[in-house]
């Protein structure tokens, strides 16, 4: 994936617009990931320049936070909760089913670029465990069947 001039301009504009906020780095990284789906490694020098930080400092922040990613995600990201409440309601079996159905492990993207799978440690939907989120849609009391239905529905609309 090349770092095109258009992408660079987008990133420079985002950084210029937010750099004067106190503690601007996280807001800038969020804005970039919202716009592009990920934070291109090539953008690190531009972000560092805008904030007068070293590239190492920017890279260190990006790599510290689980949410920030430096590769493009699939069209939809499936966030599956691995935490205790979901485990108490069969989350482990669901996890096995999801990985099997998508044919990928955590932090991977399906070959057709349709889905990325990420673990999440709590969606705050513990009263409706097990829980997951696909894109912006939250799901509760998820079973293998409801997962399959959700994935098929998305696949058909794509």
């Amino acid at each position, binding site marked *: 994936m090349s770092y095109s001039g258009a992408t660079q301009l987008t990133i420079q504009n985002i950084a210029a617009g937010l750099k004067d906020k106190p503690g601007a780095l*996280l807001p800038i990284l969020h804005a970039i990931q919202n716009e592009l789906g990920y934070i291109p490694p090539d953008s690190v020098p531009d972000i560092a320049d805008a904030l007068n930080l070293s590239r190492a400092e920017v890279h260190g922040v990006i790599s510290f936070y689980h949410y920030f990613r430096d590769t493009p995600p699939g069209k939809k990201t499936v966030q599956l909760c691995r935490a205790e409440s979901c485990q*108490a309601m069969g989350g482990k079996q669901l996890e096995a089913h999801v990985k099997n159905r998508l044919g990928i492990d955590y932090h991977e993207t399906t070959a057709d670029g349709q889905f990325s799978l990420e673990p999440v440690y709590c969606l705050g*939907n513990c009263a409706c*465990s097990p829980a997951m989120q696909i894109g912006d849609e939250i*799901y509760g009391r998820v079973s293998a069947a409801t997962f399959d239905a959700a994935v098929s529905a998305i696949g058909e609309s794509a």
Partner: protein
Amino acid sequence: MSVTIYVSKDSSAVSLGADRVAKAIMKEAAQRGVSLNLIRNGSRGMYALEPLVEVVTAKGRIAYGPVQVADVAGLFHAHFETGGNHALALGLTEELPYFKRQQRLTFARVGLTDPLSLDDYRQHGGYRGLSNALKIAQADIVKAVTDSGLRGRGGAAFPTGIKWNTVLNTSSDQKYIICNADEGDSGTFSDRMVMEGDPFVLIEGMTIAGLAVGATQGYIYLRVEYPHAHSALNRAIATAYQAGYLGDNLQGSGKKFDLEVRLGAGAYVCGEETSLMESLEGKRGLVRFKPPLPAISGLFGKPTVVNNVISLASVPIILDKGGEYYRDFGLGRSRGTLPMQLAGNIKHPGLVEVAFGMTLRELLYDFGGGSASGRPIRAVQVGGPLGAYLPESQFDTALDYEAFAANWTVLGHGGVVAFDDTANMAAMARYNMEFCAIESCGKCTPCRIGSTRGMEVMDEIIKGHDLAKNIPLLRDLCNTLLNGSLCALGGMTPYPVLSALNHFPEDFGIQDTANAA
């Protein structure tokens, strides 16, 4: 005449189909020519009944639930819009035992009002606390909070009034109020419910905190996993600015308070207050050494109040009704109410706000109705991923900070996760070590390395390898984590691990319980 109907927009209700139900109700109403005013409220917290539909009648709000799209036509056929009888009819919402037996102070409006309507908020007692706070001296605001006995609801239970007093008495050109809304503890969702269901109460609480200590800037550090709360907070903040409840001249008083939401990025450790401040400053979320206390040198080196959502959301009612009113709930040194969250393998999960003092057993069975699977509840983890597992013999512990501490357990943020007898507690202990390894900020060695070693030792134990060596090794490692870690992540991971080992030694391959100790 138009009928008013409530369908929750709480994200858990949405996860069960509330958006689809709301849409189906509007569609069916249009087809039948019924005039409806549909309000998307917060959740009442009775998740076994969500999606819950409430109809306003002369007698009060009548509840129907759980409603699915397929039920909507039948509800209209039964004239639910005038409170007609139907298989899903539950009667008056506020007479439902699950709801009626609660003492809702902090959650007084959640599920009752339109979360984004400032008028609704004010009609239900909102902004009375701020109005009182604007009339009294800063020290008197702090005194009201101190008198209420409110302790930090995020989990550490530090007296809120003492924290505020330190910030009040530290002079500085700039002070900050931070709301810790990084509700990362699994099994907890009360912060989310308040932010989605009554965002103005948090804004009001933070504004009062700002007035009390002389801080003019507030930040809500919100976890990125809560997009619905993010949107509700941003909309409520914009409304509050327009109405003069935030900004340069609070209600014409000449006082100033600005508020902004900042998003976290999926790091559990950023719920630790010093790590949170590092993150707000745009850095890696590494835990800081204490002292200095954040109250003296916090965000950008300035005096800072860091309080949990529930602590701050409890402030308006304290300033409205007085510290004594709040203190009269609860017992001992645990005053007021604690919104408990029932989750995991439980029949009636949800939000239960009660005065301190009820037993865990009452909560699990009288409210929770026992396990969802119908099997015996074997273990209950209270207080999030750093909380101990309680066996049945400890279910009579009262919900009270000191009573829990006496058992080497923690009440924390009030999360309760039930497990039935199919749970393997050695596997849970391994998971607890794994979680610590994934989320460790890496600054201190016991947590960074100890958690990974803990996972490896648990793997050996689960395989049954050399238990005579590995069990003492696990205990020794937990001892190092407990005493040598910089913050609660490493320091409290031994709570779930050792409680699992102590109470469920058979899952660790130890048949003779005398050897487990």
